[in-house]
């Protein structure tokens, strides 16, 4: 999903991961970019808004909690401070565990986006399970309000 492209032209390099936008970015990028941003249509169109159901997309930033603390304590404990030179067996094992734990340290936003993705994927495969996805009507028809 996520595509890193190296710059063409300019001073070469490749020290910075590039994502060009325009649909080739990851879902996490898309969610972070467009959600809650842009011109709000309701400000301008008050009478003829069309109420439409939308899937709730949770991409909240989670405040550091006990779980976060434990995660960092664990990561720190795994570190071999005296690891110098060649890796011994514990070093190798450690490398593997660290690789395995990468998923846990994924950003919250990415995790949220992955969750959205899961929900959407399951929605596509099993349409009858769609009710599980929380929905909220974004807005009522303005006309209904007037009546």
């Amino acid at each position, binding site marked *: 999903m996520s595509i890193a492209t190296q710059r063409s032209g300019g001073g070469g390099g490749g020290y910075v*991961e590039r994502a060009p936008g325009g649909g080739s970015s990851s879902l996490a990028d*898309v969610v972070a970019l467009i*959600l809650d941003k*842009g011109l709000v249509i309701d400000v301008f169109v008050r009478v003829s808004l069309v109420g439409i159901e939308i899937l709730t*997309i949770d991409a909240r930033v989670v405040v550091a909690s006990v779980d976060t603390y434990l995660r960092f304590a664990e990561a*720190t404990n795994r570190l071999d401070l005296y690891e110098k030179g060649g890796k011994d067996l514990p070093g190798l094992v450690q490398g593997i565990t660290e690789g395995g734990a990468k998923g846990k340290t994924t950003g919250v936003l990415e995790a949220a986006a992955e969750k959205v993705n899961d929900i959407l994927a399951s929605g596509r495969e099993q349409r009858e399970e769609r009710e599980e996805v929380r929905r909220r009507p974004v807005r009522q028809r303005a006309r209904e309000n007037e009546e």
Partner: protein
Amino acid sequence: MNPEQAERPTYVYGLITADTELPDGLTGLGPSGQVATIAHGRVAAVVSDVPLDRPLGVRGDLVAHETVLDTLAARGAVVPMRFPAVVEEHAIVDELLAPNEDHFVQLLESLEGRAQFTLTGRYEQDAVLREVLEGDEEIRALREKVRELPEDASYYDRVRLGELIVRELEQRQETEGTGIVERLEPLAVATVTNQLASPEDVVNVAFLVERDRQEEFENAVEGIGEELVGRIRLRLLGPVAPYDFIPEE
């Protein structure tokens, strides 16, 4: 426009100047897949039909919204609407464009020749944790204590250890993140700081950049990335539509 057509639900992606031609190959999120414009005076809304048999917000909808806007942004000024925007077709001229033409023209002029880049940076976990341990005796001592205790006996010490580390990371974020942004700010017209999602994140800032200075900006980011390699991974998203630079009304 017959009455049925006038009330037809229409999806609005964003606004462009009326003289901007739509590029080929745009795909809308509606059943027809088509994207069109509805113009009034000097501004035009970029629109499509909208699926009515399902709620909006699946992956394809989000991607279509972003792709249409980013593709337009690559060619000229565009004002993105907030996802999702659905109105009756007649309202696009009657309520959106006609009463606000001057305002939208000004907004588009202020964005002309500019694009958004979002820079995110994240610590390499092992590297930064080593730095934290080496620089703080209390954290080092607590870590040794935790390592010697069985897991269930060390719970509160582990929480405390993690808390101290997270505090330390947050302090680093503040100085290092600000440092990165201060170096790039002179190359941008405006910046918007986004909230960081994790203690490992160092920076998440949107830059509005003049196209004339795009290469200069990209090279500067690349230079900082080179300096930070092994400690902080930088990622540059863009050019994209100026999502972060639309004023709240």
